[in-house]
């Protein structure tokens, strides 16, 4: 049957408009809108002494200038702490416009509205803000030392102390045959979607209603925030995510100051107002992620089996904590990966610094957790002189141990109980795919060519599809068109295609008849958002349930017409028919017409449903009790807990000892996200994730100086990978369906990025024989490391030196 498209590499339905220039991104909307621009703080930490706008007032085209003094009611209060947590003891958020103090370079101080963006920026240039500079805190170590405070009333700079433990770790560590401790660092990177953020707002004064377009990952929640902050009734606010040019996490944070200020100005001025973030604003005014200091102690036995793990992490949350401690929690709980850890204790201290806020970036704390765990495995193997794959294998959770309870609490407040997986299976496939057992031969070959070759691997488990819920609505029209909507947004994941595949398969209709709308509060008002690899799991299942509801109703109505039992009917290619009786059928579009009893006919199709068109049962109402008109159904999927996807990556690097350039010559991925809706899309997600993983490991960092100035806030200086930096990727798949949801699927969006830093650190260490304890690493840093008398040689390198193999 052609309608069974679940699992097929269906070509994307969104592509037609995107390849012909007909996409509709935020800045493509509102040609006549006024433009907003912002004066942002040039200082990392300062008091605002005065704001002088006199010189700006005579700029032709200026419409309005707003400072904190112009904010009233809820707008004058701090921005919300989106995800409160009992262990977030000192949350802090900024104001929509700075209220007397700035805490990072880029914090908005003044909003200007003018006839166009050029003029608005002219005005910004003429506004003079006088600051009194305050001491600056940059980096986790400075925050921890607490010589200066980011927020005066928090002298230790600690926002939260997140603590979980599964038993008494200290006696087990003391009793372990072996133990080792080490400290490592991971630096900041950022999502860097190709389209920055942006907001367009239009106020209808006659209707007292507001329509906002925003480049967001959470339109329903932006709507609620705007209504609350601007004192509007929810029913008077519509929020729509148009085509969104990438998100990767940064657009899940909300409300951004601009998402409140632009609508505020649109209402005040009675004009459309738009703000499109420029690249520099995105660097200094959005969000970053990843920076942590990790102190790790592990106990293990002579076979490399872990007995206890004790981890203390210092996490840089930047100037404010609008997104709570989600990233620390995710690091803490996903760190254990695919391994059975008998006793585990983790403490994450989340600290303030005078830098851009830290909120989820694809992986959202998982890359750091994976880096901690996998580098621990490497250290154990190195100490014992064992194969790194073997040490991992000995610690893996076995396929017969599911569901596996880690006795930890995940980011959704639910237990970390792995639902299904086959981790030994991943490892076997990975070793085959990358040629793990060939490594020493490859190393010798490379040595003969004057290159240093190393291999590394990293495994991960990724909690995906957290609740609380998503919903789906499916409606069959009299034309035969099937309208599908979900409140969750899209940023390039191909939801229009994947969700249409699900509906076509569940309902038995041609995919061409299915139209999907996402992230539009006019169509679906209840949603959580697109993050944590949850769209396919959450909205996919909700939509499947909604389609099943429609199917059930269609069969019931058709059974009446065809004088058959619903159980004897099937739907194929949009035709409801009696199984095995060709010709006994009714089109689904006709069923849709009949589902809505009419008084008035407006076209031929509608005539069939009018009151004199067909005889009815005089003793029954046209709409049965408990039934509703229309062939439609709304349903929700709300899981008891997250479903856990998994995977394993391996990399082979070749390093040129003349330049210390690091060349990733092979990159292998084994991936398990349960049942796959569209393998082409999943593979695309893996490709993109790996590119970000490689970027994060070798190129990308946010280079702050001691004054809190971001030194590389442009694409010239922040090195995002081009095609030349991304290796070819070999992918193998494994499918262990989730028992938790009707479709058996697990999320796939973030997977590709998670193990990159860990696997590449391992491979580089293997190549050069020196401990790699700080990532990312550049050729210059590698050169310095190898030349430094203080750098530590690995035991493996020593053993190889003993056997005459070049270290």
């Amino acid at each position, binding site marked *: 049957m052609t309608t069974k498209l679940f699992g097929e590499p269906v*070509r*994307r339905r*969104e*592509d*037609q408009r*995107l*390849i*012909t*220039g*007909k*996409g*509709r*991104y935020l*800045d*493509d909307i509102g*040609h006549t809108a006024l433009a907003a621009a912002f004066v942002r703080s040039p200082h990392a930490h300062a008091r605002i002494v005065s704001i002088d706008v006199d010189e700006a007032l005579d700029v032709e085209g200026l419409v309005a200038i707003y400072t904190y003094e112009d904010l009233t009611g809820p707008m004058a209060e701090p921005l919300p702490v989106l995800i409160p947590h009992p262990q977030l003891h000192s949350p802090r958020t900024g104001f929509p416009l700075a209220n007397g103090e700035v805490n990072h370079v880029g914090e908005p101080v003044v909003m200007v509205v003018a006839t*166009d963006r*050029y003029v608005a920026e002219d005005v910004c240039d003429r506004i003079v803000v006088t600051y009194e500079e305050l001491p600056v805190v940059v980096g986790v170590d400075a925050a921890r030392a607490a010589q200066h405070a980011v927020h005066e009333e928090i002298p230790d700079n600690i926002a939260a102390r997140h603590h979980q433990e599964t038993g008494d770790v200290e006696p087990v560590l003391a009793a372990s045959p072996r133990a080792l401790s080490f400290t490592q660092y991971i630096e900041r990177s950022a*999502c*860097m*979607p*190709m*389209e920055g953020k942006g907001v367009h707002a239009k106020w209808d004064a006659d209707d007292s209603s507001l329509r906002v377009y925003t480049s967001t990952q959470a339109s329903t929640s932006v709507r609620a925030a705007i209504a609350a902050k601007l004192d509007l009734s929810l029913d008077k606010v519509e929020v729509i995510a148009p*085509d*969104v*040019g*990438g998100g*990767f996490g940064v657009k899940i944070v909300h409300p951004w100051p601009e998402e409140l200020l632009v609508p505020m100005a649109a209402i005040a001025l009675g004009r459309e107002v738009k703000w499109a973030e*420029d*690249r520099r604003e995105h660097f200094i005014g959005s969000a970053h992620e990843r920076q942590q200091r990790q102190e790790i102690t592990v106990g293990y036995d002579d076979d490399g089996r872990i007995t206890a793990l004790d981890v203390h992490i210092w996490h840089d949350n930047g100037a404010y904590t609008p997104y709570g401690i989600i990233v620390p929690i995710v690091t803490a709980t996903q760190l254990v990966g695919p391994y059975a850890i008998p006793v585990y204790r983790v403490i994450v201290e989340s600290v303030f610094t005078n830098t851009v806020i830290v909120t989820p970036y694809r992986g959202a704390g998982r890359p750091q957790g994976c880096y901690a765990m996998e580098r621990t495995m490497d250290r154990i193997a190195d100490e014992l002189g064992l194969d790194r794959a073997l040490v991992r294998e000995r610690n893996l959770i076995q396929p017969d141990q599911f569901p596996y309870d880690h006795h930890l609490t995940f980011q959704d407040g639910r237990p970390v109980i792995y639902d299904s997986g086959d981790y030994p299976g991943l490892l076997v496939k990975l070793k085959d795919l990358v040629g793990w057992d060939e490594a020493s031969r490859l190393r010798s070959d490379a040595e003969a060519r004057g290159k240093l070759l190393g291999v590394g691997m990293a495994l991960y488990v990724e909690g995906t599809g957290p609740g609380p819920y998503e919903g789906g609505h499916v409606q069959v029209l009299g034309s035969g068109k099937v309208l599908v909507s979900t409140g969750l947004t899209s*940023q*390039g*994941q*191909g939801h229009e295609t994947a969700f249409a595949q699900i509906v076509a398969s569940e309902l038995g209709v041609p995919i061409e008849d299915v139209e999907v709308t996402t992230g539009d509060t006019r169509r679906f008002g209840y949603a959580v958002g697109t993050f944590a690899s949850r769209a396919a799991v959450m909205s996919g299942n909700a939509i499947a349930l909604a389609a099943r509801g429609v199917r059930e109703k269609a069969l019931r109505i058709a059974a009446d017409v065809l004088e058959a039992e619903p159980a004897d009917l099937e739907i194929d290619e949009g035709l409801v028919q009696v199984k095995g009786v060709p010709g006994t059928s009714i089109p689904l579009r006709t069923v849709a017409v009949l589902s809505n009893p009419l008084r008035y006919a407006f076209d031929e199709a509608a005539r069939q449903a009018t009151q004199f068109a067909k005889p009815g049962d005089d003793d029954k109402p046209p709409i049965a009790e408990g039934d509703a008109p229309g062939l439609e159904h709304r349903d929700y999927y709300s899981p008891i807990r997250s479903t856990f996807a998994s995977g394993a990556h391996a990399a082979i690097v070749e390093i040129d000892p003349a330049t210390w350039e690091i060349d990733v010559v092979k990159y292998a991925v084994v991936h398990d996200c349960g049942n796959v809706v569209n393998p*082409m*899309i999943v*593979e*695309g997600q893996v*490709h*993109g*994730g*790996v*590119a*970000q993983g490689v970027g994060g490991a070798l190129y990308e960092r946010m280079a702050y100086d001691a004054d809190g100035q971001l030194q590389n806030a*442009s*694409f*010239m200086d922040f090195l*995002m990978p*081009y*095609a*030349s930096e*991304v290796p*070819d*990727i070999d992918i193998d798949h494994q499918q262990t369906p989730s028992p938790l949801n009707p479709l058996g699927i697990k999320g796939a969006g973030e997977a*590709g990025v998670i193990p990159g830093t860990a696997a590449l650190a391992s491979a580089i260490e293997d190549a050069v024989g020196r401990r790699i304890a700080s990532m990312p690493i550049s050729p210059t840093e590698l050169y310095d490391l190898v030349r430094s008398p203080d750098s530590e040689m690995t035991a493996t390198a020593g053993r190889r030196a003993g056997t005459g193999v070049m270290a």
Partner: protein
Amino acid sequence: MTSIDTERTITVTVNGVPREATVPVRRLLSDALRHDLGLTGTHVGCEHGVCGACTVVVDGAPVRSCLMLAVQVDGAEVRTVEGLAREDHQGGQVLHPVQEAFRECHALQCGFCTPGFLMTIAAGLEARDNAEELTEDEVEDMVGGNLCRCTGYANIKKAVHHAAAAMKDADA
């Protein structure tokens, strides 16, 4: 300041159609295309010439429209992503082989960088002899100057091969 100092009226052929626009002299070509001429298919990703999302073809050569002023294209021919497909005789559209290849090879996700890649690759493929076998170096050259944050480039490179093969077949 008067408009004589700050504005110019330019005539430019965009996608085969002569257009006239009065633009401030400091107006970027990218902004003029998007906001004055309403051709929003050209996207702006960095405004400092690095990402390539704004690439359009001016007089046959791909350029970054965020690094050109609109007044510089006075009298020139500009081709944007909107002009890549051609009209068929039934009022429909025939996609350019590069557009077809991008869809076929899943070479786009969010689609924001896509117009820049399409214009760069289309110009590159149209400038070469399609009878010649496309080398990997040529592919790297064509895609190597544009940034994409979604795809990891693998499928974009695949699409270049796909498009080249289609153009070779069409010529044969």
